[in-house]
């Protein structure tokens, strides 16, 4: 491995001084002269016809500047890929929390007060909540003609199906005929919020030139500009998205949310408008992780070799498909139904289904925690039936070099086996367990290195420092620091000599933004190549003036005297996933309290096959953060829903892990510099979340013989399952 100066250094978060001092301005902190507040009235019913809306009492309240309903807006549907959602409900509401009216008022308290003065008369419609029931004949239909929506895909076996995504390898029926034994299990996962602590926030102002200025907690500023242009029927150049730090994303901050309404309020009132969702609104009408029902059927030979697998996943997508960004209008993570295994005959079918529930969106590694919980629980259940060590069943089926993933990509540098063995060793897998009611469970997954496109620009200042300009927002991962490290390494500078300049959507033509574990790769490569170009310019300029290349200030000043700035840009575009992925193997050791069913994670081991690590602090931070999100998904988090009504509408009821919930942790890193990122980096942001739940479920089964098929694994479920097991 080549020695680096800056790459691989544990540099602290010097990009975040404003975050510890309180000076950083998030979109919710933006204020402007004349700013007014927008608030939305939301439907209390899951499915109803709107008979009448009377806004007169609200309009009459002192301090109210505008009240809008769908009648006041153009009939335009919004979305990220499939455009099926009205900005305000038009004649009909389809979930509890859907916006039916919006108010602008001089302060947030007046706006809240005015909401209570809007009278809406509804007429109940039959509703459907369960995804299995939603696709039966005779189920209430949510959308009369989904195929007519912009971005809709043609395949629709039932009017309540949003989309079907299929992965196919070999001949699955023929594969099952080769099987000695076949196993089938069904798993369910819960509705879960991303849990970012910054609710969606946005400010929209129409400036003197008529341009729409936007500050928003949105991680894809250029896509936001396109989507706003579509929603508002404005030319894109009329819109400028100004970047702010984002208070947590985890997949959830890519949509328009309230911004079109903020625009219309700004248009009507002539004032800048701020709209902040309260956390209760986030939990009622954000865009949480899809709940799922997943059936896995696997055919194996007597020696444990998998010959066929069929997976059917139903994702309860809620009332609209609008929050899903992928062209499939589905969850790409369903490809993980194949796990980390070579399965010659495979068919995965994923159905996203309309129901009268909160519309779901993307959450950290979308679809994967659901699919990996099902797949890795299923593997352990098969191992038990075959009387094999779960590690042995996995060893017999792991992906190897040259194998293909469910999506057809072929793989190289496959380190599935090394990763598994490292996790087993570090977790003392084969040693006796320390006592009764203690169990160990393992699970594996892998995660691609994201693709996309990024623009970067670097400039040598006359002070001799370098400015790196980028229009990628900071969602918290430390990406800006990573990019500075890349540029500093290339240019031979100290980290403090590279400063970052946050650009906006006027400064570049495009950028795919943050998501899909792409930023270190795409942003890093854009910064790398831009820095290489600048380095060349510096060398040329230095020799022209007979200066040493290290006399950067003099070089920049000499160029400035000639009226030039030393500056270079690079647009990096990675269209297709390469042949390299990153494997994860995890082992949980749990204790089950037989009296209460309480599960305590005594120790957790996480092993990762990674590329060159650019910043070890940030890298480890991604592993730890994702892992504890996975722990919450496994044991704690659940948005409880009854007839479309979410009953856990605060962070007091919808619980996230606290500092008391974190287990002792061992991290094992296998570094292999083969990634497509700068200096052969790979990705890490979504590597640690997905296998946590099945590792814990498998450990619970090992500890007490109870198999939990639906998340989260609460004490109640374990307690009742234990009682059932003991009772004859």
């Amino acid at each position, binding site marked *: 491995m080549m020695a680096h100066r800056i790459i691989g250094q544990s540099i602290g978060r010097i990009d975040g001084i404003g975050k510890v001092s309180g000076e950083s301005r998030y979109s*919710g902190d933006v204020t402007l002269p004349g700013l007014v507040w927008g608030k939305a009235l939301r439907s209390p019913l899951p499915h109803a016809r709107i008979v009448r809306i009377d806004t007169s009492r609200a309009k009459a309240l002192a301090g109210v500047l505008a009240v809008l309903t769908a009648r006041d807006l153009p009939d335009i549907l919004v979305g990220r890929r499939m455009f099926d959602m009205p900005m305000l409900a038009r004649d009909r509401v389809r979930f509890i929390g859907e916006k039916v009216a919006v108010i602008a008022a001089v302060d947030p308290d007046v706006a809240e007060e005015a909401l209570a003065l809007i009278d809406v008369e509804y007429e109940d419609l039959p509703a459907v909540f369960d995804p299995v029931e939603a696709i039966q004949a005779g189920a209430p239909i949510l959308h009369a003609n989904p195929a007519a929506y912009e971005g809709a895909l043609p395949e629709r076996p039932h009017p309540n199906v949003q989309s079907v995504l299929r992965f196919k390898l070999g001949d699955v029926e023929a594969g099952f005929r080769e099987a000695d034994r076949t196993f089938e299990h069904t798993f369910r996962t819960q509705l879960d919020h991303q849990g970012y*602590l910054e609710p969606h926030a946005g400010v929209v102002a129409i400036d003197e030139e008529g341009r729409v200025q936007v500050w928003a907690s949105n991680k894809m500023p250029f896509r936001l500009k396109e989507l706003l242009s579509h929603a508002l029927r404005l030319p894109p150049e009329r819109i400028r998205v100004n970047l702010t*730090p984002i208070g947590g994303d985890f997949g959830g901050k890519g949509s328009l949310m309230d911004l079109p309404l903020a625009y219309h309020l700004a248009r009507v009132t002539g004032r800048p408008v701020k709209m902040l969702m309260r956390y209760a609104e986030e939990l009622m009408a954000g865009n949480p992780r899809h709940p799922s029902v997943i059936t896995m059927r696997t055919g194996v030979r007597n020696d444990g070799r998998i010959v066929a697998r069929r997976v059917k996943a139903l994702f309860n997508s809620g009332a609209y498909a609008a929050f899903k960004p992928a062209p499939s209008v589905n969850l790409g993570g369903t490809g993980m139904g194949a796990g980390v295994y070579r399965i010659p005959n495979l068919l995965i079918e994923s159905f996203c289904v309309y129901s009268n529930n909160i519309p779901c969106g993307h959450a950290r590694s979308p679809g994967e925690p659901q699919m990996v919980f099902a797949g890795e629980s299923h593997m352990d259940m098969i191992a038990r039936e075959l009387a094999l060590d779960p590690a042995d069943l996995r060893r017999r089926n792991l992906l190897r070099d040259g194998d293909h993933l469910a999506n057809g990509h072929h793989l190289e540098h496959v380190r599935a086996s090394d990763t598994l063995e490292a996790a087993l060793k570090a977790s003392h897998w084969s040693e006796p367990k320390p006592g009764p009611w203690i169990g160990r469970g393992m699970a594996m997954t892998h995660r691609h290195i994201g693709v996309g496109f990024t623009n970067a620009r670097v400039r040598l200042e006359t002070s001799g420092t370098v400015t790196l300009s980028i229009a990628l927002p900071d969602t918290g991962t430390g990406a800006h620091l990573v990019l500075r490290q890349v540029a500093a390494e290339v240019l031979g500078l100290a980290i403090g000599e590279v400063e970052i300049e946050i650009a906006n959507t006027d400064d570049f033509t495009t950028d795919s933004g943050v998501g899909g574990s792409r930023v270190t790769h795409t942003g890093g490569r854009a910064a790398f190549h831009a820095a290489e170009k600048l380095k060349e310019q510096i060398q040329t300029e230095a020799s022209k003036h007979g200066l040493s290349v290290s006399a950067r200030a003099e070089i920049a000043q000499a160029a400035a005297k000639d009226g030039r700035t030393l500056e270079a840009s690079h647009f990096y575009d990675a269209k297709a996933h390469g042949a390299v992925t990153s494997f994860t193997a995890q082992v949980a050791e749990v204790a089950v309290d037989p009296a209460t069913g309480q599960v305590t994670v005594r120790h957790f081991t996480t092993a990762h096959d990674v590329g060159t690590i650019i910043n070890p602090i940030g890298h480890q931070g991604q592993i730890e953060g994702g892992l504890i999100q996975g722990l919450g998904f496994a044991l704690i988090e659940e948005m409880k829903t009854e007839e479309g009504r979410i009953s856990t509408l605060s962070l007091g009821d919808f619980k996230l892990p606290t500092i008391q919930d974190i287990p002792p942790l061992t991290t094992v890193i296998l570094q292999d510099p083969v990634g497509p990122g700068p200096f052969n980096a790979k990705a890490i942001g979504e590597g640690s979340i997905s296998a946590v739940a099945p590792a814990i479920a498998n450990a619970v089964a090992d500890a007490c013989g109870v198999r939990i098929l639906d998340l989260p694994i609460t004490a109640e479920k374990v307690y009742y399952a234990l009682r059932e097991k003991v009772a004859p």
Partner: protein
Amino acid sequence: VIRLTVNGTPHELEVPSYRTLLDCLRYDLGLTGSKEGCGVGVCGACTVLLDGKMISSCIALAVFADGRSVTTVEGIAEDERLHPVQQAFVDSGGFQCGICTPGQIVSAKALLDTIPNPSDAEIREWMLGNLCRCTGYYKIVESIRAAAQRSPA
């Protein structure tokens, strides 16, 4: 009309009786460091010190602070230098997105003011009311441990 001292500066202002201390700090005084997360006193992003004691400013009324002294995250740094707790959070990666960080910093400072050399168990006990979704907390514990070692005992 209420009188309160915020980060050492006295203020006199007229606020409606229902105004929360958090909104008063953010919107009347322009101190947007304190954040609203959950809005119900659970997540700790709005934590400030009232006469040196931690409170959730999102569920405290501004009038409650009348005649008292408030310290927000903006008042933690000493002159131009970051407080050792702030520096430790930077050095050890104790934050990512930063939205919970003002509350973490205020709580951690209160901890070290009370227990200068806390054990890990004491750190976890004290910081229980400050949620963080990014870090998984490990580096928050490390940061506070580092700050304790750095602080003049």
